[in-house]
């Protein structure tokens, strides 16, 4: 082997080692890799119990009640109709992201469900194991593009909802509304799910209107348009993960942006969700987002409109503990 060839070979080897080194260091310090490390670190943590979990999640008579079961799982009852959003009742989201605290809802106590709403296909929102725990006498609604990821569940009906599509049945109107997020389920499928597979929903029934954002980043035009279309009584909005902000900004609102959505859609009340339940970012503490939200709401003087629930806690609106104000 001549000197030139030896140099070339050595150079190629050095370059290869350098490139592999860069990939390893870059890969290990990336947000997903750091997240994976943190998820593994917290695998052994105990799952905290919920102190007071109701045995009767569906009420005999209510105008509007909301029970936060943790993360984006919210049981909404409007008079006789029962809706559940993004059920996550398993020990982990996917296989890696473990719960900090058990679900605030025992699915065995659910007598029925009229509609189960899936906002997008990420593991923490579209949990196959959780859906298998639920009563199946109602309908399962999924966003456009999600049927390719929907197993043969036993629900009475499985329906895909395109943006601004409205389902009307038995006095219930459910409209899929656009939000700013991303979809895919396994990472590699993100490229062809850019414009599909995620949605928010607006439920209208018996004169009550509830907006559920699912996961979203802040997009003023989208939310102002939703506010112009509907007279929203209650907005159920995500507030976390907050950090690292540059990484999360596009797909996840922080508490101040969630409050801005609350103003944009012109809702009367807001219930925060998508916090405190599972590992999902690098917030300084599990309660960081909700503390920030309360601080922002206090500064804006709207503390009484932002109804913060504990996991497993239920709040009745308009005829329960909160009087229904006259709409302007």
């Amino acid at each position, binding site marked *: 082997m001549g000197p030139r060839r030896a140099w070339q070979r050595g150079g190629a080897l050095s370059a290869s080692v350098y490139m592999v080194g860069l990939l390893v260091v870059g890969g290990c310090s990336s947000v997903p890799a750091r997240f994976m490390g943190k998820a593994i670190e917290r695998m052994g943590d105990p799952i905290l119990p919920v102190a007071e979990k109701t045995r009767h999640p569906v009420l005999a008579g209510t105008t509007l009640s909301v029970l936060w079961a943790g993360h984006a799982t919210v049981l909404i009852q409007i008079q006789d109709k029962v809706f559940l959003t993004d059920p996550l009742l398993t020990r982990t989201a996917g296989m890696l992201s473990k719960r900090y605290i058990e679900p605030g809802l025992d699915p065995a106590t659910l007598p029925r469900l009229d509609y189960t709403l899936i906002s997008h296909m990420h593991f923490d929102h579209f949990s196959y194991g959780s859906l298998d725990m639920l009563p199946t006498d109602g309908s399962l609604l999924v966003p456009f593009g999600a*049927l390719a990821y929907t197993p043969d569940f036993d629900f009475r009906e*499985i329906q895909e909802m395109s943006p601004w599509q409205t389902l009307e049945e038995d006095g219930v109107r459910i409209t899929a509304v656009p939000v700013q997020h991303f979809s895919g389920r396994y990472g590699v499928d993100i490229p062809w799910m850019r414009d599909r597979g995620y949605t928010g929903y607006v439920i209208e029934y018996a004169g009550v209107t509830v907006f559920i954002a699912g996961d979203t980043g802040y997009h003023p035009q989208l939310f102002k348009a939703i506010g112009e279309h509907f007279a929203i009584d209650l907005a159920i909005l995500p507030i976390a993960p907050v950090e690292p902000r540059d990484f999360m900004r596009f797909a996840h609102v922080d508490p101040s942006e969630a409050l801005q959505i609350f103003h944009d859609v012109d809702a009367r009340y807001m219930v925060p969700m998508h916090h405190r339940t599972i590992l999902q970012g690098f917030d300084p503490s599990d309660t960081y987002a909700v503390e920030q939200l309360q601080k922002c709401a206090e500064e804006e003087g709207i503390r009484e409109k932002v109804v913060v629930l504990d996991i497993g806690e239920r709040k009745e609106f308009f005829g329960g503990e909160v009087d229904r104000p006259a709409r302007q």
Partner: protein
Amino acid sequence: MTKKPFVLAFAVTLTVLTHGSVFAQAPESADKFRTWLPYQGVPSFTLYSGAPNTAFGFEWEITPLLYSFGMNKQISPWYSFIVEPPGRFTGSIELNLAVQVFTRKIGSSYFSLSGSLIGFIPLLERGEHLTLNLGVSMYRFGERSPLFGVLGVSTLFGIVHLNVKHSPAEKIWITSLEWRVF
């Protein structure tokens, strides 16, 4: 010479099915194909144990046809080449073809070809966390074409498969750690 029909069938199947199915699906298919293609270059690992020796190898697999019985009935149960993971792990029967290259000669060649019919039975979380894999494989090593029984599991969203294949007639064991993305 006897290898030719096997290789020809492999090539024709690949060409016809790729042309006929990949682009005939939804509008996002071109994006899907561009994403799918590079992942098919990532090899799985395989270990051959039997006569004439033990050899480590790399394997590349494709799925000309898969019938899924675990997905909702509003979508077609038939998949060809591009298989969204739930299509496979929620319960399916798959025909797959593979080529292997070994670090040592198995008979007269470093290469082998195989065709398998595998059933995926969901065990946990509709199969997303765990499936049982059962099936048969036929390998082509030089002049020999032994038949294997296949037993294995898949986990991590259907991406990682561990399969053990055994040919009692030829006393060969093949263990494969497979990486399946679509």
